[in-house]
């Protein structure tokens, strides 16, 4: 089926003339019935963007038909409601009668198709999702204690404890020596009107979850620990921080645990990057001389820098922060705690500990309240760490009936499959390609990075959009993914990722014996130099997507299921933020399923750390999740290589796994591929 409609010239028997009015410009044109709306607009001098070349692929040419008859060949990218309202794709719509058409300003359209980065940076909506109630381990309890007398000569500590039991039901209170040393002065200087800062020793899992998850043994009633005594009633604000230690980026949320409000967030590159881009390089670095200590110091400095930034911006004292909740991958957690990660790397890949104990901030060189504890999310194995358990927690997949595939794509792709009954996980090495690494003009997703690409199927000319609409400097992950998909669909590369050298376009050229496609020429959009995608880059991207999809396949098969059984996909991590689902399916990175079953769950690791900070039950659930997750070691699984090779093709060796892409290719093929050099 040709998705490009013939325009009216000579092809329509009844050349009935129709007047088309374009708003807001008010231009009018008369065309024969059957004329493509896009052509009518062009004849009227109304500009409509068609980055895909009028193939009905990109949806950028949508218009609103306010009145009159049209015939829509394809309503791709439009919902039924939108069609009912009169929306249409100009390149897929024929004029059938006199019309009034509203052409949205270009900005409005590009906003609609912009990946939803802004939406994600917004505040976390409260209440969370119903699963979590604000019931933090860290609490502030105000008591106005009656001072001691000869009649009631109870000691200071028990006196405080007595009121805490009476008013708040706090079980067994305990305190460490530093707290006791200042207690007498603290209570008296406040004239016994004080706020006790306490936290729980052991997390608790609610009964209902226990039954759902078949978990027992985490439920324990522990003592309550007194961290500090503040004068007066300070219960309105109990500060904690949630920290996501990524291999690349560290994110800190400043949280008021009293109401679960995220007050502010800050992020920075992990300073360890100077010692290697990926976890393996860091582990290797940690084995040299003072390497481990140095790496520990670098990440601590990064966190402390962010804490300072937050403190300054919010006018708080670091001492007022009473808890730190951390999520990171196994290597990051090891390095943060100063544990030797050597055996994380070497077969059989064994971490020192999956569930690190809570430790005092002071012991880690973190300058928040010295009694504050740092609690790390537990991991499952060497390549599935606390960041993933935190993600499974915050995504809610551990409580759903639906068979869910959770993925976190970074240098390593971590994948979790399961539902509330069972969870299985694996990690596959995707390489840094999706983060812009190992790619000639790759870069991280920062302003100036090409993040969206369309290629006109006829002219093979690209249309690029950068983050922040700045002059292009390079291509970030989502741009690479988009470029790969577009080069594939437009026939610039074959299904094996090889660039065709017989195409009639100056965009494809050979440099240093390697074929490349020029995405942006120097001067275009203000670019200072050419930005290209080489055949070698394409191979790297293919390998990255192949490894991840192979991971899905092996995981799904390992429990005797098929990809078709998967009911929903959750994408986590920075990469997922900009991911264009349609493009990701076209290259075979994500399984082919209706887009509404694929959702982005944000920085689920940071969110998980945050939930564990503001909710004791979430902390307990983290442990339960870690305990029940089954870790599948792909290097011990021979079928991985087979699935990997299968996935090293566009979209996949078995096109039946990607029916929507198969249809798209068929349409494009019937239209005829790009121009070939004579």
């Amino acid at each position, binding site marked *: 089926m040709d998705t490009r409609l013939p325009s009216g010239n000579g092809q329509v028997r009844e050349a009935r003339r129709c007047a088309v009015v374009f708003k807001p410009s008010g231009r009018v044109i008369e065309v024969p019935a059957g004329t493509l709306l896009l052509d009518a607009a062009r004849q009227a001098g109304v500009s409509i963007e068609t980055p895909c070349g009028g193939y009905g692929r990109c949806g950028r040419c949508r218009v609103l038909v306010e009145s009159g008859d049209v015939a829509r060949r394809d309503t791709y990218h439009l919902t039924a409601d939108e069609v009912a309202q009169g929306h249409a794709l100009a390149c897929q719509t024929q004029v059938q009668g006199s019309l009034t058409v509203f052409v949205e300003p270009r900005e409005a359209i590009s906003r609609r198709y912009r990946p939803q980065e802004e939406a994600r940076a917004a505040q976390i909506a409260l209440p969370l999702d119903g699963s979590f109630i604000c019931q933090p381990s860290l609490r502030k309890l105000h008591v106005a204690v009656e001072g001691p007398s000869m009649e009631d000569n109870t000691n200071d500590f028990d006196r405080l404890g007595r009121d805490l039991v009476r008013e708040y039901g706090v079980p067994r209170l305990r305190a460490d020596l530093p707290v006791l040393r200042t207690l007498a002065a603290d209570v008296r200087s406040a004239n016994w009107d004080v706020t006790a800062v306490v936290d729980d020793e052991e997390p608790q899992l609610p009964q209902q979850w226990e039954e759902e998850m078949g978990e027992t043994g985490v439920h324990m009633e522990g003592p309550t620990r007194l961290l500090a005594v503040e004068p007066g009633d300070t219960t309105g604000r109990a500060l904690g921080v949630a920290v996501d230690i990524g291999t690349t980026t560290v994110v800190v949320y400043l949280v008021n645990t009293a109401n679960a409000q995220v007050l502010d967030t800050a992020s920075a590159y992990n300073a360890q990057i100077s010692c290697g881009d990926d976890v393996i390089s860091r582990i290797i670095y940690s084995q040299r001389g003072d390497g481990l200590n140095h790496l520990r110091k670098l990440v601590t400095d990064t966190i402390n820098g962010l804490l300072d930034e937050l403190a300054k911006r919010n006018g708080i004292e670091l001492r007022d922060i009473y808890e730190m909740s951390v999520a990171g991958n196994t290597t990051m957690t090891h390095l943060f705690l100063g544990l030797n990660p050597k055996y994380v790397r070497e077969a059989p890949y064994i971490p020192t500990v999956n569930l690190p104990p809570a430790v005092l901030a002071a012991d880690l060189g973190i300058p928040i309240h010295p009694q504050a504890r740092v609690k790390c999310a537990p991991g499952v194995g060497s390549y599935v760490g606390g960041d993933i358990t935190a993600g499974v927690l915050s995504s809610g997949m551990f409580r759903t009936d639906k068979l869910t595939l959770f993925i976190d794509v970074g240098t390593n792709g971590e994948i979790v499959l399961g539902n509330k009954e069972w969870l299985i996980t694996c990690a596959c090495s995707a390489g840094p390609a999706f983060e812009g690494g190992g790619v000639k003009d790759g870069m991280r997703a920062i302003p100036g990075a090409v993040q969206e690409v369309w290629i006109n199927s006829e002219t093979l000319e690209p249309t690029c959009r950068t983050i922040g609409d700045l002059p292009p400097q390079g291509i970030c992950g989502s741009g690479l993914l988009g470029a790969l998909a577009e080069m594939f669909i437009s026939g610039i590369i*074959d*299904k*094996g990722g090889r660039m065709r050298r017989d195409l009639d376009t100056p965009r494809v050229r050979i440099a240093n014996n390697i074929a490349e496609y020029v995405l942006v020429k120097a001067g275009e959009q203000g670019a200072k130099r050419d930005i290209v995608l080489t055949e070698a880059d394409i191979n790297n991207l293919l390998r990255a997507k192949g490894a991840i999809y192979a991971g899905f396949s092996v995981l799904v098969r390992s429990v005797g299921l098929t990809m078709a059984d998967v009911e929903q996909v959750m994408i986590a991590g920075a990469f997922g933020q900009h991911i264009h689902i349609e493009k990701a399916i076209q290259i075979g990175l994500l399984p082919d399923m209706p887009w509404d079953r694929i959702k982005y769950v944000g920085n689920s690791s940071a969110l998980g750390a945050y939930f564990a900070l503001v909710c004791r039950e979430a902390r307990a659930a983290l442990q339960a999740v870690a305990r029940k997750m089954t870790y599948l070691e792909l290097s011990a699984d021979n079928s991985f290589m*087979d699935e990997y*090779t*299968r996935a*090293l*093709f566009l979209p996949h*060796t*078995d096109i039946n796994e990607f029916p929507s892409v198969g249809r798209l290719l068929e349409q494009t093929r019937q239209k005829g591929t790009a121009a070939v050099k004579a």
Partner: protein
Amino acid sequence: MPVTVETPTEKWAGKVREITLGATAAEGGTRTSTVTVGGEGTMPFLHFEGETPHRPVVAIEIYDIAPQDWSPILMDYWGDVVNDVVAWAKKAVELGADAIALTLRGAHPEVNDRSPEDSARVVKDVLAAVGVPLIVYGPGAPDKDNEVLVAVAEATAGERLALGLCEQNNYRTIAAACMGSGHIAVARAPIDVNIQKQLNILISDMGLPLDRILMDPTTGALGYGLEYTYSVMERLRLAALQGDAMTQQPMICTAGHEAWRAKESKVGEGVPEAWGDWKERGIAWETVTATSLIEAGADILVMRHPEAVAIVKKTIDQLVAK
């Protein structure tokens, strides 16, 4: 109590594609006989389950120059004919070759660096001398392969030769040459089901019809990876029967080349006594390699020793008998 056993028949959705090598005068070529392979609708030779309309065939491999690196056993057998490609081809047909596999080794830059035009002439000479279909291999140096096979394809347009090898990194030129001149492409993947299928897709995406693509899954000789080839072939055949259109190409295996590269058939001295007689061993090595591949689904066997060819052909007779 008598027990009744039902025949456990698998119902297959697909079958192997039929491919004819060689074209007669009526079909635009000059062959006096053609060979059709493929069409199987069952795992090999399970006649209770599906058809095997065409028997596997044996092509005898010859070189355009006297081979430098062949086992003495082979050189002794063939004698002087190896110096005359036309005589060699005729002799091979006399000895039962269903087709001739001609390797243009002389065109290799490090052998005789014979020009594409001269190589094409050699092919024409062999075509003139024998009536059976031809499979023509390039010298084994990618750039030269392309040059030589393009020349051969053009000089022999319409003969429906099989031309090889199309490989993952070098398939476009040869496939295009086949497309333009009515020949068949031999697509070789490195013992990998997925890469084989990918290669078939890539070649067919170029526009070469699927009934003009043969699969060469890469042969491992007995003792040298035979089991990998065996399993890859079984998997390809199963996929074909399950209806995967992109794995339904008939398979061609270079059993002779691989078996005679093995130490067992190449070396006669300083080997364990338990290996037995050298000559017999070499023939047995090629025979077992070839028959095992037939059991795995080979449609065309490219072989070297006529005594092994005779046994293999007899085995094929037995297997296709209903």
